[in-house]
């Protein structure tokens, strides 16, 4: 009997495709059958991890095709195996992996789509924070008002029109032409139903949100956005965020 540590190392190496570990038995103990039985474990590990990635990257899977995705996922798993039993945190390396995956070299926008899916996963599981009550905003002086953004909210500057690609690949979405080369900025948040929508926002929207997050007042943030785009509609952005429950108390808890 090898020491337990050697046993585990040998078995794990076999799961990764190495030689069958020593000391396996079955009834009847035929060598061919032992290999078939060991293959159940090897298969369980691979299939369950591929399934975890398929749940995490449904749009990528739809875009490249299920069979292609499942084969590619096995390569990803070999290069980036999970390091924790908490699989909901696994897969962040997918955008970079896709960028460097030669068979997809002609589809560079896929990495941006994967960035959206990674961010959606993080937003789905992000910490809770109570939305500001409308009363907290009513009558407040924008020159003194500071707002926090919900911990689930994420802003992703993208090289391609990946928000449009993501939207067109949602269940029931109507096909429409996409100018893929157009860079977009994704706003990802968790709405009041705890769903995670993805929207494109303008550069001015992004600037205003960055300023709010940095602790600037509402007025200063809106003015910064207006300075880059005189037509920027700060009220519309604020209203949408309030509807989604994405406005919270600022980090220090002081509104104004």
């Amino acid at each position, binding site marked *: 009997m090898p020491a337990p540590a050697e046993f585990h190392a040998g078995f794990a190496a076999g*799961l990764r495709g190495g030689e069958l570990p020593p000391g396996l038995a079955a009834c009847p103990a035929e060598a061919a059958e032992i290999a078939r039985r060991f293959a159940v474990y090897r298969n369980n590990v691979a299939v369950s991890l591929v399934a975890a990635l398929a749940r995490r990257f449904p749009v990528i899977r739809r875009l490249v095709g299920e069979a292609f995705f499942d084969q590619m996922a096995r390569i990803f798993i070999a290069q980036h195996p999970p390091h924790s039993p908490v699989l909901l945190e696994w897969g962040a390396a997918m955008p970079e992996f896709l960028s460097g995956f030669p068979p997809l070299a002609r589809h560079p926008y896929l990495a941006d789509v994967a960035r959206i899916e990674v961010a959606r996963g993080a937003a789905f599981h992000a910490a809770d924070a109570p939305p500001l009550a409308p009363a907290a905003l009513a009558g407040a002086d924008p020159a003194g008002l500071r707002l926090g953004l919900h911990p689930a909210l994420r802003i992703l500057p993208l090289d391609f029109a990946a928000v449009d690609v993501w939207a067109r690949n949602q269940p029931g979405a109507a096909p429409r032409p996409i100018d893929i080369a157009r860079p977009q900025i994704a706003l990802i948040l968790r709405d009041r139903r705890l769903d995670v929508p993805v929207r494109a926002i303008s550069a001015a929207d992004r600037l205003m949100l960055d300023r709010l997050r940095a602790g600037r007042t509402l007025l200063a943030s809106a003015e910064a956005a207006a300075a880059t785009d005189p037509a920027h509609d700060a009220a519309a952005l604020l209203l949408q965020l309030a509807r989604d429950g994405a406005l919270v108390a600022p980090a220090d808890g002081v509104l104004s």
Partner: protein
Amino acid sequence: MTGLPPDVGVGFKPDHHAAIRRAPSQMGFFEVHAENYMGAGGLPHAQLTDLRADHALSIHGVGLSIGGPRLDAAHLARLRALCDRYQPDSFSEHLAWSSHGAEYLNDLLPLPYTPRTLDLVCQHVDQVQEALGRRMLLENPATYLLFADSSIPETEFLRQIALRTGCGLLLDVNNVFVASVNHRRDPRAYLADFPLDQVAEIHLGGHAEEALPSGPLLIDAHGAPVADPVWTLYAEVIAQRGPLPTLVEWDNDLPEWPVLQAEALRARDILRGGSGLARAS
């Protein structure tokens, strides 16, 4: 902690939440996989908080790797935080391993049963119970292979763990059937040797079947109804041991809620002394 009620429950799936809440719940408890609730917030915790408000709860770990070389302290701390948050009526894990070094292998892997592995598992169960400040339950595995070095029968291995650590046992009747068929043994002989007095929960689930030259190989796939021979074995255990908290697991190819609920109600019929046939479809 008083333990789960001697009633039926199901493994909770997020897709079923709305259907479960559409009518007064008939479930005695729900069970969740611990690792699915290790994010900070959002829908998983909202649903679990909602169910916890009026149900008993079992937290079932699938990633602690109790049969592995060493326990992951960070994961143990996450389990502690989850148990502190939800105060479950039961915490259980598997006689199996799933991590090697830094790599998580995401399956319940088998281990040889020897005096050395017995020491290792007992040490880990002690460590878990100390970290969580509660008694845990350990589940018998579904296995596809044996080890030439195993010198202790699985039932004796589990009995010794329970004796030495004070942990309870989770008897998975489907696993008993799967492993017995796979190893060409008699499941009733296994159950006759099993320390039934230490059992605090039962699992039932469906399996899949493959063919080997020597006969069937059953896979613990949790993607089908509970098989008839498993119902029969379950009824025999209940007849011998009396009502025990009983969970129906269904993790893959998830059915609509009424299908899963019907499986649980069939188990309840057996728990209450019926044949279970009234609910058979």
